[in-house]
Structure formats: structure tokens, C-alpha cells
């Protein structure tokens, strides 16, 4: 019986992109369903009644929610190809820790960068760069966070990179100037088809954020 995989997603979501990337890494075919977040589908509300959020993966009718939980699920079910988590328990714990760190920090700080001004924005920019520098330290001299191949932390973080242009533009700063190693890593990731086909065009994301700012009445 062929697997039926449906992904409920919203195109600019860096969380949704993580799932697209994991599915691409595993070479899996799936049906992509775009959600209008101002008018959520009955399917989304049924499959994620708790949070009513995307992404949701529906595998043979069963829903899985929360992007990093979905990525781990994909990794466990299709464990024979391109493993994302290492096999050693300590290395796995380190990967989970850093993916959790990305989750706890980057989205909120990024949102503050494009949606606030003045001191609040400056503080967010400073903290954002500090987080990226910490992640650079964790990357070290490895080509990827996963070592020689893309791993769990790469998947968790690289999807934010297509939002960097928007952050830089609205925050008036350069991420590459502060974190050149991290930008080099994003370029290295983008050379892989699974990554380039899963991430959105940074200019398109910029346009989306511009639209959001207008809607929210933010200059």
C-alpha cells in the first residue's frame, strides 16, 4: 500500500519549510495544501484542533503537528534514507538541544526585528546576532551542523535563511557582516537540491513581510 502524505502549510512559514525539506531529503512524494491562515480549512481545524496551526503532516490519515516533531517522525518512519538525527544518544541530545534553541529564540527575535522600531528593534537585532554567533560556534569547522551531511539542526535553522533578507532590510543591518561563517553555511546548504527546492525566494518573503507591515499599520 502506497503511503498517502499530505502537508498543510503556508508558503512563507519557515516551520512549514522544515517539513518540506525533511520530505525532500527522504525523497518522498506528498500532496501540498496551501492554507489561508485568515480562513483556516475544516481539515486544518480537524487535524490540529489544539493549536489550529500549520504545518500539519497527515500520514495515511493520521495527523502529526509541530514542525520539529514532524521532522523527527519523518526521520523515524523513513529511517533507511538520509538519517537526520545521529545514532549516538549524546549526539542526538545535542541536536535536539540546538534545534530547541533555534525554536525558542529566532522566530520571536526575527518578528521583533521587522515589526518594531527604536530601542526594541535595536535590542532584538543585537540578541538575534548573538544567537546566530552562538550557532556559528556550534557549527565550528564542520560543513554542516550534522557533520558531513545535513542533519536535524541544519533542517531546523536553514529555513530561517530565506527570511534574512527581510530582517536585514527592515532592520537595516547586515547578517553576513556579523556572521560570515553562518552565511557561508547557508550557501553551502542551498547547493543541495532538497534545500533550494524547499526554501522560498527571499525577495518573495520580503514582499510578504512588507504586506504584513502594511496590514498591521507598521511603517
Amino acid at each position, binding site marked *: 500500500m502506497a503511503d498517502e502524505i499530505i502537508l498543510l502549510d503556508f508558503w512563507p512559514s519557515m516551520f512549514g519549510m522544515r517539513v518540506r525539506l525533511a520530505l525532500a531529503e527522504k525523497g518522498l512524494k506528498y500532496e501540498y495544501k496551501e492554507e489561508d491562515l485568515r480562513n483556516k480549512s475544516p481539515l486544518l481545524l480537524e487535524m490540529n484542533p489544539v493549536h489550529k496551526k500549520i504545518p500539519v503532516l497527515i500520514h495515511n490519515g493520521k495527523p502529526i503537528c509541530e514542525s520539529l516533531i514532524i521532522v*523527527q517522525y519523518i526521520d523515524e518512519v523513513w529511517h533507511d534514507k538520509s538519517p537526520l538525527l545521529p545514532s549516538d544518544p549524546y549526539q542526538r541530545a545535542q541536536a535536539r538541544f540546538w534545534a530547541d534553541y533555534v525554536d525558542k529564540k529566532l522566530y520571536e527575535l526575527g518578528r521583533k526585528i521587522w515589526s518594531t522600531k527604536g530601542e526594541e528593534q535595536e535590542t532584538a537585532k543585537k540578541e538575534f546576532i548573538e544567537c546566530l554567533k552562538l550557532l556559528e560556534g556550534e557549527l565550528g569547522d564542520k560543513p554542516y551542523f550534522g557533520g558531513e551531511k545535513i542533519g536535524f539542526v541544519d533542517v531546523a535553522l536553514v529555513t530561517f535563511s530565506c527570511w534574512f533578507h527581510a530582517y536585514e532590510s527592515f532592520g537595516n543591518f547586515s547578517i553576513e557582516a556579523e556572521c560570515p561563517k553562518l552565511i557561508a553555511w547557508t550557501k553551502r546548504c542551498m547547493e543541495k537540491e532538497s534545500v533550494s527546492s524547499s526554501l522560498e525566494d527571499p525577495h518573495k518573503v520580503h514582499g510578504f513581510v512588507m504586506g504584513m507591515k502594511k496590514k498591521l499599520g507598521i511603517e
Partner: protein
Amino acid sequence: MGEVKVLGASLSFFCCRVEWALKLKGVAYEYLEEDLKNKSPMLLQSNPVHKKIPVLVHDGRPIAESLVILEYIDEAWKGYPLLPEDPSERAKMRFWARFTDEKCVLSAWAACCAKGHEREKAIESAQESLSFLEKQIEGKKFFGGETMGLLDLMVGSLPNWIEFLEEHGGMKLLDEEKFPSLYEWAQKFINIPIISERIPTKEGLINYFQGGQNSRHTTGK
């Protein structure tokens, strides 16, 4: 299998989860109580990113964040599995584990702190979160099924914490009538010996917030 240390704080409901998991696996460990107002060099070195407890140190290698630690414990030591084998059941358990920390814990605290008009809304929100947990435990002995699982350990210290918040904030959250299954599970769970040995109590929390502070240095088994 190696030297195990737990850096913790006896009133933290994140830390007891780690000790319970080690006890269920039959792992001997040394417990080191941290003074959170004067963090030890060991803690700062073991968790330089967040500088928080709990930290598990196994053979000199530190692991931080309670949920990450619990999954590590489950993978490093066989016997008494904390997560089910089926990937979709594992995903469900991870989902509810995150939900517990991101929604239940925070909304309970928010309900305690809210004032005036905001209070009723905050209490409603906290109870909505609890109603999701109620549905998960309905008809089951433990969140893990017949035996305790990761989710039992995640939710386990919540009832005492909520009791403290209820008294501190003058309100009712874990209503026995509204959440009969959750209430029943809580009463049984906190009286299981390995659980009750290491659980922050309402009295301990009240004492701490009133200015006295409990601290113990113990060696766990």
C-alpha cells in the same frame, strides 16, 4: 554504566522529572542542589547557553533542557521505556509534552498573576489547557497507558505547582468536577513512592515564596 550527576533545584518542577526518569531506569546518580541566586561554576560551565537547571552530566558530558534530558535517558538506558515504539504514538507524546510546558505551565502562572478583567480570561485559558490533558488521560491508568511514560513525568509535578498557585492566587484551576480523570490521576501519581520522594510540595513552594528557602544536598538512587 558511567557516572551520573543531576544539577537541580528541589523546588523546580522541571528537575524532578529527570530524577524520576533515572529512578524508573534504576540508574544511580549524585544529586547536586543549586542555589539559583548564586549559580555554581559547574552549572555555568555545563549549561553556558541557558545557565539553567536541570542539567544531567553523564561521564562528564552535560545535557540540558528537561525534555531533551528525558529523551536522552530513555535512549541511553534500556529497560522501562518512557516513549512508545510506534512513531505516531511517539509524536503524540512529544506533542503533549511540549503542550504541557508551553501552555499548561505558562497559562497556570498567568492565571495566578492576572488582575481585574484579565483574571477570568486567564483562568478560562488555563482551564482550557487542562481540559486537553483531561481528554488524554480519560480511561487510562497513566498517560503512558498501563505504565508511566514520558508524559506522566512531564505533567507529574504540575498538580502540586497548581495547588500552590491556586492558594497564592486565590482561585481554582484543577477542579475535581471539571477534570475528574486528571484529578484522579494526579492524586494517585503524587503518592507513588519514587515520585513522592522527589516532588516539590505546595508547602515547600509557599515557604520559598514567603522568603524561607528549602535546600537539600542529597545523593539519589
